[in-house]
């Protein structure tokens, strides 16, 4: 069992195909698998359905794959920061399935946990409910939402060990644990590879069973969308 790969290209080798569904971790540009996105660009894989909370910006994050027209559909909660996305969407070159953020997180978790459907109050009586089954529990109406399983999941973690155990840092955790779990095949890029036993077993966020391949991240730009500071006087 050897999970660590020498490069992102090697980590994706044999695991990409046209028309595939790819789940990606990250919220905005925080905790996104920058290195693996670039490798996916290089792979030339086409017609991707991407499950990701956001769509990156024009030249960064999933925006990189939109620019190359490798994505044909997004399942996302919010895509506001990307002009190229807007252009393709308005030109009907790109399909979008909007999903409320909590519903998206839960659909990914459900897919990873073998739950094909669950009920939620989120979106009842809105456009999101169109075409979806509803059911009443205790006099209240709920929507049926389905679990999501991706052909490939790409995630970014802070530290990883040779068994694929992952630890995330602060709010860069976000969608990464669910992405890792909902992939039929999951590749993680990490800022640091540590030795066996170096991660405290009680602190591991994603157990190695969810990670098939691991690679040291070579891109850790971590671009900030809204740099907001206070003055020292406070």
């Amino acid at each position: 069992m050897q999970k660590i790969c020498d490069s992102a290209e090697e980590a994706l080798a044999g695991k990409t195909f046209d028309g595939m569904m790819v789940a990606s971790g990250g919220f905005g540009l925080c905790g996104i698998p920058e290195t693996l996105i670039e490798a996916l660009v290089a792979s030339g894989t086409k017609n991707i359905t991407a499950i990701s909370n956001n769509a990156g910006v024009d030249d960064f994050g999933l925006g990189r794959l939109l620019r190359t027209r490798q994505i044909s559909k997004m399942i996302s909660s919010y895509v506001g920061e990307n002009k190229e996305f807007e252009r393709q969407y308005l030109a009907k070159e790109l399909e979008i399935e909007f999903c409320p953020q909590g519903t998206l997180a839960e659909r990914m978790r459900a897919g990873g946990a073998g739950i094909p459907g669950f009920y939620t109050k989120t979106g009842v009586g809105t456009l999101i409910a169109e075409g979806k089954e509803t059911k009443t529990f205790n006099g209240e109406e709920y929507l049926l939402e389905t679990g999501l399983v991706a052909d490939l999941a790409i995630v970014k973690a802070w530290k990883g060990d040779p068994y694929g155990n992952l630890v995330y840092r602060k709010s860069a955790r976000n969608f990464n644990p669910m992405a890792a779990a909902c992939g039929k095949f999951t590749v993680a890029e990490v800022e640091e590879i540590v030795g066996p036993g170096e991660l405290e077993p009680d602190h591991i966020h994603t157990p190695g069973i969810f990670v098939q391949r691991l690679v040291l991240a070579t891109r850790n730009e971590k671009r900030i969308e809204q740099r907001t500071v206070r003055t020292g006087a406070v």
Partner: protein
Amino acid sequence: MAWTRDEMASLAAQDLSDGFYVNLGIGIPTLVANYIPADVDVTLQSENGILGLGPFPLDNEVDADLINAGKQTITELDRTSYTSSADSFGMIRGGHIDLSILGAMEVSETGDLANWMVPGKMVKGPGGAMDLVAGVRRITVLMDHVDKAGVAKFRKACTLPFTGRNVVDKIITNFAIFERPDRESPFQLKKIAPGMDAEGIRKMTEAHYTE
């Protein structure tokens, strides 16, 4: 004279009780954090997986791994914990958050909220707003009383697509405050901005409410 954005935020902050867990939406609601009374202990949640939001960082504290749901850089506190997005929305959907303060395009007299899309314009997506209004125990809306064309935003019915139905408990506009004791009751006019009067408010409001 209409209330300023800061005054609206300050008015919203008066509803914060000791021990509350609160989610503040993007925009004016973010300002509420500046007006939390000193003797009230409030924990702010951000739906991207942070319980216990700190203030914006000093320039040398900025950390790209630490942002709020508005993608702004923030800091942590001695109470902070991080979770996955699924667990974060578990808090929201499960009714563990006491109050969410959100912006709105329109609110109907029955508490319907519209704040996520305008047909014909580019749709950016609901983000976490639908989850918040469906799950959080109490929803306060902060919005201008009328839009740029002078049209009332507190209406008989929403003209824009819903974020949630019958989900709003309190509305604070730049002109007035409306509130209802429960979601079966009509809204009541509770407070009027200085220099405005009840008659003026009524003229600028399409919704039915009690006084």
